[in-house]
């Protein structure tokens, strides 16, 4: 008989099932798109 504990373990594994984002390559050192960009000293802030 499937033990209650085993059933729970399986359900917790299903709950935490990795998805495609977990399988994606690491973005550790990829500069984020929203990286602060250098403000240009000589651009006038005109309207």
């Amino acid at each position, binding site marked *: 008989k499937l033990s209650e504990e085993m059933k729970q373990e399986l359900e917790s594994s299903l709950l935490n099932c990795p998805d495609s984002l977990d399988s*994606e390559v690491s973005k550790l050192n990829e500069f984020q798109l929203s990286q602060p960009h250098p403000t240009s000293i000589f*651009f006038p802030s005109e*309207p």
Partner: protein
Amino acid sequence: YGLQSLLEEFSKLQKKLPKHENENSTDNTITEQQQQSNNRDNTMITGVDLTPYIQSLNLDPASKLPFHHVLETLPSPWIETSRSDVEPRHFIPESFTKITNVLGSPVSPPVFNQVSNVEQNKISLFQDETLFYLFYKHPASAVQELTYIELRKRNWRYHKQLKVWLTKDPFMDPVVSQDGLSERGRYVFFDPQRWEKVQKDFILYYNAIM
């Protein structure tokens, strides 16, 4: 092992009430064993229509796609957990990482801080998306400055809070506010996450753009 037992098993699996052994039995309760087999996940035995699986793997013959491998880009065994594509195995050939004399110094890999005048007029030939690519791909570099200048020439402005580029919708004149500090109008934003231009009505504060 005969045909009768096979058909009985399948009729059970098809969730019909199993035929009782002796036709005249009036007992309506399903036996424990029948109940058990009824609860079993029948698809493991009868199988399932594989069409949705095949389509989810992009293997549907109707799609007329040429033969292609699926395992190299399989995001996950289940459709439900395949929320996004995954970067497949790939290799950037040397020749693509050692581009010299095009937007890069003769030293490889390209260092985008010495920009000869060749780049200046080359930049003005690029389409907007290329400029955005160079702007985001090479932060804190001279190329970013160059693309910045070129984009402003094309009436794009960088929004400091939103950290995105925007330009006026050419077909609609914005209305300037009383205090002259802002204007309401329709603008085109470049969304770097989805890599596309998005149109939005917006109140633009002049001090928010660079």
